[in-house]
């Protein structure tokens, strides 16, 4: 499905941990070429700061980075993945063109953000994030 928006693709990082989501976002922006509009938001932990997943934080983050070109969502484990999938399947609060990207959390976040900052469309951002699975370390 192609997106019709003109702005950059947004990236949302959903982790059980607010600190992990935030630090991963900082890592991704730190490794991307500067200058463009920063469109990455962390949605980590629950609303009261505990470990877990908040549907409200995910929706707010996706809306904050949505410029009409789609939103790539990366999630870490268990309820983070299940909550995003459920929001996509059962609810209509996420912006149109929001997609859960199948990717490793940290490596995928960097790849997604760098490609989004370079102007890639949602399909290309998703593919770049998924390609991070191919990066073997041993």
């Amino acid at each position, binding site marked *: 499905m192609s997106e019709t928006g003109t702005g950059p693709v947004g990236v949302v990082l959903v982790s059980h941990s607010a600190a992990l989501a935030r630090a991963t976002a900082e890592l991704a922006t730190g490794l991307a070429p500067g200058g463009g509009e920063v469109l990455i938001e962390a949605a980590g932990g629950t609303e009261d700061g505990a*470990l*877990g997943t908040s*549907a409200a934080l995910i929706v707010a983050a996706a809306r904050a980075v949505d410029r009409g070109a789609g939103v790539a969502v990366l999630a870490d484990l268990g*309820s983070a993945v299940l*909550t995003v*999938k459920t*929001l996509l399947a059962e609810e209509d609060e996420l912006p149109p063109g929001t997609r859960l990207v199948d990717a490793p959390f940290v490596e995928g976040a960097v790849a997604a953000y760098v490609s989004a900052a370079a102007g890639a469309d949602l399909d290309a951002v998703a593919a770049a994030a998924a390609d991070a699975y191919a990066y073997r370390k041993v």
Partner: protein
Amino acid sequence: MLDAAFFRRWMTGAAALISREADRLTSLDSPIGDADHGTNLHRGFSAVATALEQEETPTPSAVLTLCGRQLISTVGGASGPLYGTLLRRAGKALGEAPEVSREELAAALGAGVQAVAALGGAAPGDKTMIDALAPAAEALATSFEAAREAAEQGAVDTTPLQARKGRASYVGERSIGHQDPGATSSALLFAALAETAAGGEGGSDE
């Protein structure tokens, strides 16, 4: 026939039961999970009870859809989207009918269970809520009491299993010998349904 009031009594009954059993659910979740199942579900079903007081729910579908939405947004753990999906899919399957039969509810919950299995990727025998939900939804075609018993049996029968899905799968063989917390809370949902049907003025078909 089962009307919206019956479904509201079921969900508030489930909230009360979850509240009473929250500590037990959390202690079941301690050796094989992250010790939050009771706390999480208690938070979710408290929100369900509050929402049912505040919002209009004219049909059985509206009750289940509202409750599912509350669970998705308030639980904070994997059981939120899983139970939320169960109730929302079942609600959708019931359509706009003001009253539904027990058999229709059984079929709707069957559709909900399938959606839960697809979401979590769990099959029967993986030591998850599916092990209680699937036989219970099927037995509901027979009677409310049969569904309660099937759910309880399904939960008890998870004890010797090794977890293959969810957080408990990380502990591998050490999950053997513990009853699954998700299957246990699923049994509470069907216990509340049977109690509602047994006690209910204007709602039971038995």
